[in-house]
């Protein structure tokens, strides 16, 4: 056996240990993980609670968006009805799409990840519990305020895709569009926070010996899901930012009369928007792949192929964005590339469908509600997938694009690929969090109502589209034979709604929240989430020897509960979990975890306040709220990066692991690197925009500032990076007085500011952000950089404060490491943008 970290796999053979654990250890563990009561519940950060709140909130948004859909269906039941006035209808369909995509589908998958992942990996919690709490609160507060805009008639009305120029200031002068841009931009930030958490969780907190080949499919699904969010979401953040800048400051990113281009929005939006579909589908598919083995009482056939499908989808789905733009008149050759990629991306979906069928065939499927939902979802998804292949054919797409055919297609894909799996998940995993399972009898009714409802609603829509009905219309003319299929769709929508209503009844009758007295493993799953658990998850963290540990080792539950595996107690006297290596999951160190805290909640409210108050142009309260958010984040960070009394502790069977490590193997370093990838993607999207406008609007391109004007900035950036690096070196040498290394790091961080100012000064002397698209994007580079420089300055202050309180006390220290990493990256990106602005010069 080879090793990844030097850990000797032979040590696994010591488990399960024979000796009994000392008295009182379990009580100590329970005491440490006990949750606050009463109002203090809001400070809980444990995934058992936060995960459930998250799921509940996402489901609430599903219901709200569903109600909007029902009202729209009533309006469309007959031609030329007056139930919803035009303006309200336009707000309704915009909100329906936006809420379903941004406030239901993605958060629901993230929520299920928060809830299920730690249990499946047998981790005590996710690695950054306070970050999940922050992500949840930011999403919840932001989402509710965003939805409330509907009640005051200020909801956005430009469609969930928000194409400019319709959404520009000229054609959407109100603040409706700003609600969308700031609200959604902000919710994306919460999604990214969750994604960082999930990636680090999957790669670093798996149970020992849960090597990549033994990792549960859901963990693969979430890993790919979160990685795709990291790559895709910056695109939508960037384009919403551009549009907001255009609206607020008249920077012409999308204005063709000043060297912008409306299609730039579409490229950026769909670079996010199409992967988004897979971001929603993959976790749901992964959950299906987890449930089917239990439901069919056999192992998953084609486990490896499904992992393959996930990884292939993760890449290829980034090559299909323009198939939403076939009708924009793109060059024929480009269209061909996107058509080919759109074909390629359906192969992985086929692999999964046939894997599921093969698994059902090899097992003995049971007739119960989750099985029905899985099967129903499968059929619906296949139908949506087939129409998907149809629309990947460019000429066919020219006919059905933006018609009800597409409405039918996308609802089949998302309902079959995500909604039905989520309902199956509710039935299947409810035993983890409720003391009573849901009713099988009601469940079957729910299923059949929903299944029939989906087909009655959406099957006729294919024909409605063929008959010429475009999407996003608040009414249609009589006499075009459209009435029949539309009426049918409305009837179907109510049947579907009846199914959902029945589910709510079931939930009200049977759902009883619990953490440790759940109804349990009703369907006989074989993975670790069905180990006996408390708030601390499993009492001890087992050594994983197969993909279905509970099936292959009948004693595992007892041994885990009796503490015969890793980390049976709390050796440091804190909440803690085991950090393992990414490929082979070899134990590396014990992470000390933070407990309940009110600061994530406050900082989320502060962040939400910042964005929402900005929307209504209340600038001073907005900035006050933003500063509050920053202070709360710093306060919450303050408790972290602490040192435990013992440098090494016994994690079971005499295996000693460190309690504090620094450098590249820490979870903090990983999170920072992923964050920097997000930042880099923002930069890359800006770069794409710059080159894109250079290509399509050469006539507006003016000679950029000379290269020599950037030398001052480049020199200062170099100095900043040098000082930051020096600080880290000095830290390693000194043992007692720690002022010199911190001072060097702080000087490094603060040097970024004059560098940026020098760059801005020489660029703005030549390029005006209002004059041309070139100027606008050049200033977007600078704005991007400004954000990083401000964060670096904050980090410098924070480091200074920690040094003053004597909290930077190791020869190597994570806070210093992360500050260095960030400052060096900022300096490199700053230099790159300074060069790019000057080098892309006048073809025009």
């Amino acid at each position: 056996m080879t090793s990844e970290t030097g850990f000797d796999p032979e040590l696994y053979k010591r488990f399960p240990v024979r000796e009994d654990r000392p008295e009182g250890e379990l009580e100590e563990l329970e005491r440490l993980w006990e949750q606050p009561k009463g109002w203090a519940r809001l400070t809980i950060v444990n995934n058992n609670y936060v995960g459930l709140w998250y799921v509940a909130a996402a489901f609430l948004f599903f219901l709200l968006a569903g109600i909007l859909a029902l009202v729209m269906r009533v309006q469309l039941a007959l031609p030329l009805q007056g139930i919803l006035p035009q303006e309200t209808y336009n707000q309704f369909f915009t909100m329906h799409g936006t809420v379903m995509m941004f406030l239901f589908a993605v958060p629901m998958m993230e929520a299920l990840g928060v809830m299920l992942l730690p249990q499946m990996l047998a981790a005590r919690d996710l690695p950054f519990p306070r970050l999940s709490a922050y992500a949840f609160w930011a999403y919840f507060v932001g989402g509710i305020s965003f939805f409330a805009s509907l009640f005051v008639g200020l909801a956005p009305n430009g469609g969930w895709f928000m194409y400019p120029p319709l959404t520009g200031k000229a054609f959407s002068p109100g603040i409706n569009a700003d609600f969308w841009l700031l609200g959604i931009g902000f919710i994306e930030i919460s999604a990214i926070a969750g994604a960082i958490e999930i990636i680090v969780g999957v790669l670093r907190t798996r149970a020992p010996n849960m090597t990549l080949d033994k990792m549960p499919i859901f963990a693969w699904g979430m890993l790919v899901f979160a990685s795709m969010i990291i790559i895709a979401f910056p695109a939508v953040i960037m384009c919403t930012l551009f549009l907001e800048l255009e609206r607020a400051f008249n920077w012409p990113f999308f204005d063709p009369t000043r060297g912008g281009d409306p299609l730039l929005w579409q490229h950026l939006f769909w670079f996010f928007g199409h992967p988004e579909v897979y971001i929603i589908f993959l976790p749901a598919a992964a959950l299906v792949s987890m449930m089917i083995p239990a439901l069919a009482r056999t192992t998953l056939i084609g486990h490896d192929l499904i992992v393959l499908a996930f990884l292939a989808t993760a890449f290829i789905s980034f090559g299909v964005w323009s198939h939403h733009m076939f009708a924009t008149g793109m060059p024929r050759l480009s269209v061909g590339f996107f058509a080919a990629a759109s074909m390629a991306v359906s192969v992985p979906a086929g692999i999964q469908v046939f894997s599921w069928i093969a698994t059902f065939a090899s097992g003995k499927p049971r007739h119960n509600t989750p099985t029905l939902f899985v099967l129903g979802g499968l059929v619906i998804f296949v139908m949506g997938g087939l129409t998907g292949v149809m629309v990947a054919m460019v000429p066919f797409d020219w006919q059905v694009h933006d018609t009800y055919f597409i409405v039918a297609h996308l609802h089949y894909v998302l309902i079959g690929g995500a909604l039905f799996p989520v309902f199956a998940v509710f039935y299947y995993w409810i035993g983890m969090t409720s003391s009573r399972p849901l009713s099988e009898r009601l469940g079957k009714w729910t299923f059949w109502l929903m299944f029939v409802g989906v087909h009655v609603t959406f099957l006729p829509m294919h024909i409605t589209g063929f008959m010429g009905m475009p999407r996003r219309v608040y009414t249609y003319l009589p006499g075009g034979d459209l009435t029949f299929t539309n009426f049918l769709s409305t009837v179907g929508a109510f049947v579907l709604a009846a199914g959902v209503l029945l589910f709510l009844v079931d939930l009200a009758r049977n759902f009883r929240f619990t953490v440790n007295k759940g109804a349990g493993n009703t369907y006989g799953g074989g993975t670790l989430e069905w180990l006996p658990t408390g708030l601390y998850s499993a009492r001890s963290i087992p050594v994983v020897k197969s993909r279905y540990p509970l099936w292959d080792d009948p004693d595992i539950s007892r041994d885990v509960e009796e503490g015969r595996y890793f980390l049976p107690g709390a050796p440091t006297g804190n909440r803690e979990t085991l950090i393992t290596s990414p490929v082979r999951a070899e134990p590396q160190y014990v992470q000390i975890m933070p407990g309940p805290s009110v600061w994530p909640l406050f900082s989320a409210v502060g962040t939400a306040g910042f964005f929402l108050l900005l929307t209504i142009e209340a600038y001073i309260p907005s900035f006050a709220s933003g500063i509050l958010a920053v202070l709360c984040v710093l306060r919450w960070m303050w408790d972290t990066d602490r040192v435990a009394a013992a440098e090494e502790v016994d994690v079971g069977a005499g295996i000693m692991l460190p309690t504090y490590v620094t450098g590249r193997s820490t979870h903090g370093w990983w999170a920072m690197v992923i964050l920097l990838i997000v930042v880099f993607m923002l930069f890359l999207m800006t770069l794409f925009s710059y080159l894109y406008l250079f290509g399509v609007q050469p006539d507006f391109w003016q000679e950029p500032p000379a290269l020599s004007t950037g030398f001052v900035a480049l020199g200062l950036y170099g100095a900043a990076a040098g000082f930051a690096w020096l600080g880290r070196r000095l830290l390693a040498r000194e043992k007692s007085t720690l002022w010199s290394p911190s001072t060097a790091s702080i000087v490094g961080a603060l040097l970024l500011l004059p560098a940026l100012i020098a760059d801005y000064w020489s660029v703005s002397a030549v390029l005006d952000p209002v004059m041309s698209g070139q100027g606008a994007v050049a200033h977007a580079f600078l704005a991007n950089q400004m954000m990083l420089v401000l964060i670096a300055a904050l980090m410098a202050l924070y480091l200074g404060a920690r040094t003053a309180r004597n909290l930077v006390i190791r020869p190597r220290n994570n806070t210093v490491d992360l500050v260095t990493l960030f400052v060096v990256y900022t300096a490199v990106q700053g230099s790159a943008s300074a060069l790019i602005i000057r080098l892309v010069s006048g073809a025009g």
Partner: protein
Amino acid sequence: MRTWVFLLGGMVVWTVHFFGAYGIASIFPERVLIAKLLAGGLTLACLAALAWLARRSWAAFNRKEDAVSDWIALLASLLNAVALVAVFWQGFPALLA
């Protein structure tokens, strides 16, 4: 890191090919013939790279080290095969569009 590069190498080649082809088509929207020749050349180069990667990953799989390495080598081989098909399709527009 090396593990991940080995595992995902094929898909990275696909990515290079796709964005390369997209870039070529965007730089020469009018001169279709040049674009097609360049895209075709890129396709051949990427197919060759993938063939090499596939051979390497398949050899690694046949070395039979331990369960984890073998599994990763198998998955890498499969991904290389998928990338091969996808790049092959991606070459069609250069011939047919």
